[in-house]
């Protein structure tokens, strides 16, 4: 059965990117929320490496190695870890990629592989509405 939920984005979302809250579940600590951009231009989901210790990842290179290229064509190595998170009220496991080569404070991106292939999202930008089936 398909259940489409509607989310009103009645805030000035950052830089005209669609930003949504993502709940994370740090080991031994209460759940937290971080912001992430819904980014159909990102092939994978990429998160800020500052979140690694919160998720209990002590060795970023222990993940699955993924070659990355930034928007400015800078190459880097990324490492993917399957992380259970919550978006739009639903728990899903998404491979999140982190890079030791890029600085902390990067924007969290929910991208095509691992996110958009699990979640149906429709955007009515003019009405600031998201239609989600998850």
């Amino acid at each position, binding site marked *: 059965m398909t259940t489409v939920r509607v*989310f009103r984005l*009645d*805030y*000035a*979302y*950052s*830089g*005209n*990117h669609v*930003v*949504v*809250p*993502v*709940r*994370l*579940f*740090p*080991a*031994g*600590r*209460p*759940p*937290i*929320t*971080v*912001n992430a951009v819904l980014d159909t*231009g990102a092939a994978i989901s990429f998160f*800020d490496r*500052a*979140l690694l*210790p*919160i*998720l*209990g*990842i002590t060795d970023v290179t*222990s*993940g*699955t*190695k993924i070659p990355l290229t930034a*928007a400015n064509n800078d190459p880097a190595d990324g490492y*993917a*870890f*399957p*992380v*259970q*998170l*919550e978006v739009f*009220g639903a*728990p899903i*496991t*998404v*491979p*999140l990629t982190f890079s030791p080569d890029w600085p*902390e*404070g990067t924007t969290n991106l929910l991208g095509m*592989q*691992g996110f958009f292939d*699990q979640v149906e999202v429709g955007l009515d930008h003019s009405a600031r509405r998201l239609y989600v089936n998850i």
Partner: protein
Amino acid sequence: MLPRNSATRTEILQTPSAGTRWEPARRPSAGWRELHWFEANKAKLTNYEGLWIAVYEDGVVASALTAEEVVDQVSQLGLSDCLVVKVEQARTERYLIA
């Protein structure tokens, strides 16, 4: 047995390896309320530039140099579902095309 770094995409999707398991939010607006507050007020957060902060409902409840320290602080406060975000320095807005 697969060597390290050779997991298939299916394995990556199905086997969480980081963090802990999902638990439902105590507040139905958890995350959204804090996101709205942050977006509406981030221009006023100049005192926190370069720091990580935790936003709970309609205000900042913790700040530190690292995200981990902020999470430790909110954990000690017993608060759940704080928005943990870095306050960037104010700059001229650029338009990203990617």
